[in-house]
């Protein structure tokens, strides 16, 4: 009897337990999201900071952003850059993971160790090292190219935006590869062997085994990894910022840099907020897909 009435009574415990996390997230993430939305409808510059209040301007910031041809260039550049990094890191990661299953255990062990070492590199450390490898003076890459008979002397890789973005994207992909490779490899080893054997006994060839067994089982992992990569790579900031000595030229602007410059460079916080909001909206579809996949896993 006591049990039944106990179950019907309102239980405050779960709510008390989640309350601290809700407060922390609400204050530091929830409120800023609200603030970001309201800022995007305001003129908010130095004068407004001092006054502590923005001036409502309606859709002015969005209108200004969307009519700025520079914005569309930056958006296109960001999308290309993201697409490049995501596809390279996913394709190479998947390729490596599938090879890891077949390679000699000794080689696999060393590769795994190297991947973990790279994974552990703090962002600023990996950026610093890549900058050194591709530095203007005494770069090892330049030295190797010179020794092969091409005369480059001191080469600034960042004068040309293509090679610049290639190096920055390479550094991002290098840092992301271990997580992607090890996740896919871990998933591959979880595919039950008897299932594959059964299919082989039934006469399935390797291609059919892959298409009908391995691929469907790995699909959720790929969806998660691709969504996460898109979200991470779309907002790359520190790499570009530090590779270009904290003052990237306009050809290196991506959405994140653009929003940052508008706000902290030009003190047009309303404009910066509008651009940031556009970034979030650009990712809504991807985020939704990821969320659904994770919730589905959480239910089991």
């Amino acid at each position, binding site marked *: 009897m006591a049990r039944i009435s106990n179950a019907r009574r309102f239980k405050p415990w*779960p709510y008390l*337990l*989640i309350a*601290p*996390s*809700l407060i*922390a*997230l609400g*204050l530091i*993430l929830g*409120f*800023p999201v609200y603030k*970001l939305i309201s*800022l995007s409808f305001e003129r908010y510059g130095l004068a407004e900071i001092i006054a502590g209040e923005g001036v409502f301007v309606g859709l002015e910031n969005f209108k200004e952003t969307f009519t700025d041809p520079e914005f569309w260039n930056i958006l296109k550049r960001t999308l290309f850059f993201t697409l490049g990094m995501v596809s390279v890191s996913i394709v190479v990661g998947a*390729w490596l993971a599938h*090879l*890891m299953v*077949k*390679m*000699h255990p000794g*080689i696999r062990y*060393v*590769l795994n160790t*190297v*991947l973990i*070492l*790279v*994974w552990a*590199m*703090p*962002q*600023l450390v*990996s950026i610093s090292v890549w900058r*050194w*490898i591709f530095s203007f*003076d*005494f770069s*090892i890459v330049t*030295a190797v190219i010179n020794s092969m008979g091409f005369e480059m002397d001191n080469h600034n890789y960042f004068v040309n935006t293509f090679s610049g973005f290639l190096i920055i994207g390479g550094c991002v992909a*290098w840092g992301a*590869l271990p*997580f992607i490779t090890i*996740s896919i490899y*871990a998933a591959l080893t*979880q595919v039950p062997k008897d299932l594959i054997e059964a299919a082989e006994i039934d006469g399935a060839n390797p291609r059919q085994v892959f298409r009908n067994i391995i691929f469907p089982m*790995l699909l959720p992992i790929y969806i*998660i990894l691709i969504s996460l990569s898109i979200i991470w790579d779309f907002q790359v900031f*520190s790499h570009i910022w*530090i590779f270009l*000595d904290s003052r990237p030229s306009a050809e290196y602007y991506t959405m*994140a840099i653009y*929003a*940052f410059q508008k706000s*902290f460079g030009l003190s047009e916080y309303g404009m910066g*907020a509008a651009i940031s909001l556009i970034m*979030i909206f650009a*990712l809504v579809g991807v*985020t939704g897909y990821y*969320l659904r996949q994770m*919730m589905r896993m959480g239910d089991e």
Partner: protein
Amino acid sequence: MKRTSSTTYSNISGLFAIVLMGFPVYWMVTTSFKPKGDILSTNPTIIPHSFSISNYVEAVTKEGFAKALLNSVIVVFFTVIISIIIALFASIAVARMKFKGKRIYVASILLVQMLPLSALLIPIYLLLSRLNLTDKLAGVILTYIAFVLPFVVWTLRGFLVNIPTELEEAALMDGCTKPQAYRRVLFPLMAPGLVATAIFAFIQAWNEFLLAYILLSSQDKATMPIWLAGFTNRFGTDWGPLMAASTLTAIPVVIFFSLIQDKIATGVTAGAVKG
């Protein structure tokens, strides 16, 4: 026949990947031990022929090293302790209790994890400057807690659901109260998961650059990543000491990370493949 050729191909590709992936780390460490003359040379040698610790001496005696180390330790310590406690409470509710709004709570936890940090810089900066928390370690700690929380809650939940409820139920039957059952039965079983998650939060807080860069302006508030970024000034970059400092910054992360990487790797994707 086919099997051996594909194994050979895998092995060769594997060795190739080891060299390519490992080279930046190798180059960082070897550069850090080279004397200045060998670093500033137009003919750098892949295999170092002389050894010197002068770069390390220069790095740790560079202005701000001790302060940055201390600041990072303070930031990491409070971020880890506070976020773990808050997340532990929340994960118990999510993994062990039924309540209205649970799905919404879990969804919002996962959702905020996906918010692009660089998009939230502006309002976070304005909020903290309103609260007088810019250029203070407390402001950075507060934001770090919020940013690691979703992952920490989600991961702890994952560890918790893998512990059978029968164990706590048995303790309750034996006359334990619920908090006692948690403390005596659940927490000891959770310890490995807690340690792994704490290390994860540690690494995040230790590595974070962007928020610290925006929120901390004075030099004596700098954390390790900010200090690292300070090796480049308008006169150029001091590569040798920077590589030594980078190695020093990476070492604690490498040590801790190697302890937990298998747990984190499976934690993110746990349950995605059903055996």
